[in-house]
């Protein structure tokens, strides 16, 4: 027997099989069975559904209760009245002032307004656009009309406008023109200390306020501190002295122009605390209108480039004192030890010679005052490359200087690939190792303060870092005496400033050319000075890029003729400003033959 289709389920078999035997229609039995099961199942399903509907009901009771409670609490709370005021609450608008060490303002905020348009409220876009173009000549009325009548509902016109401009815009009288309060960063001294301050621009912008964000200099380094609402009442105190900074920049600018230099830099640092009293780099810029970074040409030619901490130069003979100081510290020689200055020294193809021939023998102190390359190179040979590298590393000459200007991390010294004996000899007189003027200032500060390497700082009171001893106090004191000799009897004779006992060392380094050789008549002239020599308080480093004194019959480029007089003029102007009394030294060293250095 075949079945039309195999239906499932074929139940109940106990009734179907006998019925089939009897030849009855089994469909009836099956349908009745299905109906019965269906009834039973339906009841179960209904009860489950009943439970679930109850759950749904409870869920809805909860939802409605929550909403009712929420409306109730809202109704019973007080409305926050000024609707527009807290709109910019998420943007912190106060930025702390920056002041110099005497509390004079370097950077502050000024209330101003931004101008924006809500196109939906504009009554006469054409007329408004025309009048705006008259007030702001850099705007084009056709473009404004296009913007006003396009899809945009909101557009910024100007980020900062003056009160006069604001009044003029107000007088147009169109309700679509809106003003948003703004705080702008103002540098009331203009270009003064431009590289230190850097500049600020708007970050997050809202209608009611905009965030001021530092983009360079201390504005960037201390951005979080300056924006911290808890500290907004306390200005950031820098170690700079505004009047000293002004004098330094003025004299430096004059010197740069007179000597037709491409650029110049000066650093004045307190040798005990590391406080940077003045730091200048020329050419400079106005942080109120910070120029865009250059996209072509050399970065070093941009006014944004900070020569004092970013420019790495071979600093020439200014390095010689480090070799001498180290040799004295190691007990290899004393100031009167006589050195063989017979030249030139040949080292393979390389020859080391002096600017002038100083004869076959020179005492160490004269190696410094006369600036003998041969003598210094021989001292370096005595020290050895390894010791020299260790000493210069201790002085901080091999790593970027730790300093509170974001740019300082870019001033990474250029070191020889292999610190060979030849490298040691050339480095001893400042060739083969390039560092920033700031590195040099820190090195000289260590000599001036009795042998401690300090960390330079732009904060009043210094960075608070523990000084590191790099040489003995006696070696440092002897070095200062030798440097004083450079001014009284040596290459820096124009550096004498009556009453302030300037000590220092000149350095004239040929500039490397684009081809990797040295330029013939382009130099970096540096004068690193310490004053007053009998009780050193400050180090001043002045660097001129490609100076040229054409007053005489032939062009003079050496530091003694260029950087030294500029530095002397700076010291003459700033020493009284910093409260240094001019002192008459115990005796005129120039007339006394020195027999002992103790």
């Amino acid at each position, binding site marked *: 027997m075949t079945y039309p289709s195999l239906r499932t389920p074929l139940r109940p078999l106990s009734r179907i099989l006998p019925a089939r035997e009897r030849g009855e229609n089994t469909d009836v039995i099956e349908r009745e069975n299905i109906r019965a099961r269906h009834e039973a199942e*339906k009841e179960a*399903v209904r009860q489950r*559904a009943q439970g679930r509907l109850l759950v*749904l009901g409870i869920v809805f009771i909860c*939802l*409605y209760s929550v909403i009712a409670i929420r409306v109730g609490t*809202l109704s019973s709370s007080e409305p926050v009245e000024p*609707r527009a005021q807290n709109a910019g609450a998420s943007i912190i608008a106060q930025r702390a002032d920056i002041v110099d060490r005497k509390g004079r303002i370097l950077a502050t905020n000024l209330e101003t307004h931004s101008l924006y348009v809500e196109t939906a409220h504009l009554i006469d876009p054409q007329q408004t656009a025309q009048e705006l173009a008259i007030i702001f000549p850099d705007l084009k009325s056709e473009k404004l009309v296009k913007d006003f009548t396009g899809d945009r509902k909101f557009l910024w016109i100007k980020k900062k406008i003056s009160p006069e401009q604001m009044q003029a815009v107000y007088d147009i009288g169109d309700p679509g023109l809106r003003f948003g309060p703004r705080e702008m960063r103002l540098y009331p001294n203009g270009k003064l200390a431009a590289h230190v301050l850097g500049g600020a621009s708007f970050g997050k912008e809202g209608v009611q306020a905009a965030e001021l964000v530092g983009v360079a200099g201390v504005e960037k380094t201390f951005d979080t501190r300056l924006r911290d609402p808890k500290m907004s009442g306390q200005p950031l105190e820098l170690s700079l002295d505004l009047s000293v900074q002004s004098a330094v920049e003025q004299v430096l600018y004059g010197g740069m122009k007179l000597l037709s230099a491409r650029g110049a830099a000066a650093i004045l640092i307190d040798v005990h605390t590391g406080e940077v009293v003045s730091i200048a780099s020329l050419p400079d810029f106005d942080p109120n209108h910070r120029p865009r970074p250059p996209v072509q040409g050399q970065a070093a030619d941009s006014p944004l480039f900070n020569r004092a901490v970013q420019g790495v130069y071979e600093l020439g003979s200014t390095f010689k004192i480090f070799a001498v100081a180290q040799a004295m510290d190691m007990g290899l020689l004393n100031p009167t030890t006589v050195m063989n200055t017979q030249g030139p020294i040949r080292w393979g193809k390389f020859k080391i010679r002096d600017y002038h021939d100083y004869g076959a023998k020179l005492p160490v102190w004269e190696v410094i005052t006369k600036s003998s390359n041969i003598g210094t190179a021989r001292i370096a040979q005595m020290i050895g490359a390894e010791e020299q590298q260790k000493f210069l590393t201790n002085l901080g000459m091999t790593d970027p200087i730790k300093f509170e200007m974001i740019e300082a991390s870019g001033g990474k010294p250029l070191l020889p690939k292999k610190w060979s004996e030849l490298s040691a000899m050339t480095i001893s007189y400042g060739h083969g190792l390039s560092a920033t003027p700031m590195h040099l200032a820190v090195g000289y500060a260590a000599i001036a303060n009795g042998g401690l390497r300090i960390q330079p700082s732009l904060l009043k009171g210094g960075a608070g870092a523990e000084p590191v001893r790099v040489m003995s106090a006696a070696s440092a004191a002897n070095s200062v005496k030798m440097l004083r000799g450079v001014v009284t009897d040596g290459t820096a004779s124009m550096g004498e400033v009556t009453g302030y006992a300037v000590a220092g060392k000149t350095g004239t380094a040929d500039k490397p050319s684009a081809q990797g050789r040295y330029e013939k008549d382009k130099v970096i002239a540096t004068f690193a000075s310490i004053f007053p020599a009998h009780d050193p308080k400050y180090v001043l480093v002045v660097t001129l890029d490609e100076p040229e004194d054409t007053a005489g019959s032939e062009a003079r480029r050496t530091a003694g003729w260029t950087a030294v007089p500029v530095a002397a003029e700076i010291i003459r102007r700033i020493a009284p400003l910093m409260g240094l009394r001019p002192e008459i030294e115990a005796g005129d060293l120039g007339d006394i033959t020195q027999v002992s250095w103790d």
Partner: protein
Amino acid sequence: MTEMVYGSVPVSKGEPILPKWWRTVDKWTLMSVMLLFSIGILLGLAASPPLAEKNGFAPFHYVQRQAVFGGMALIAMFVTSMMSPILVRRLAVLGFVAAFIAVALLPVFGTDFGKGAVRWYALGFASLQPSEFLKPGFVVVSAWMLAAAQEINGPPGRMYSFILAMCIAVMLALQPDFGQACLVLFAWGVMYFVAGAPILLLMGMAGLVVFGGTLAYQYSEHFARRIDGFLSPDVDPRTQLGYATNAIQEGGFFGVGVGEGQVKWSLPDAHTDFIIAVAAEEYGFVLVAIIIAIYASIVLVSLSRLMRERDTFIRLAGAGLACSFGVQAVINIGVAVRLLPAKGMTLPFISYGGSSLIAGGIALGMLLAFTRARPQKNIADVINGYR
């Protein structure tokens, strides 16, 4: 003899339609809907004049339209509620097919009225939002399928209705109209839940919803902006939500007085999505509480009547309609009080809007038809004469 000669006296098959309707219909819900509609007119008088003024109409232009549409909606509701569940189902399925095609053709013939979402057909005198009509139709069709699936040897209706729900949700999400898409999925979920969804599956579904929400957040700017606005801790007082919150606070418990409210001048959607803010400002928490109570009572009374219901289809369809109606109100008010992220959803019977009013009337009519008292195999039913 008389009968043998003249034939039997025709016996009426049942009692007349109207008395039977009145005897069996859910009168509480009926009254509640009427009340909601009157509140809608009352609030429309307050909320819509600024819009009418802006669009250059007479002050009560929108109130008049609301009254006309409301009248049509009430007629639709009464007529539908008088139908038998079978007739409701047949008509709803036909209506569903029509609405489905209309929604599918929206990208071709629809318009967005400059609001960034193609949801409407412009008909000249009025605009039509077919998705509003799709919702109740979908609920009925799904309920039918889910109920059929419970029959022995029945079709796999759960799968069919789920696929249908997903199709519609995707279509709506593409407009984009995430609010309606969510509502459709919600209605299906409720029916599936009542139809006996396994608890494990429900949890899986919840996970899927979270996942889908995250996806939508990442890939739809429209969606992400609203969520961001909701999540930001302080409300910007220049946004709609800011104005709404302020209005509710200004209103306090008894309101600032009829016609004294300010929020309607600042809120572009004061007459639709944020009408509860107008109610709260002018009439205070009292009216808002009454409105919430009315919605809650409609949902609860309907659900309790459905609990007695023996017919699976009627139970499911009724539950789907009642819950989607109830949740729409929850979402609308929840948005205005910042319990939920902003979402364009109307307050049923109170917000202005032709399509939503009429579709709401039809949906409530269906619900009333489903919740009418019927004999439920109880002896009490027989005694009370429910047939």
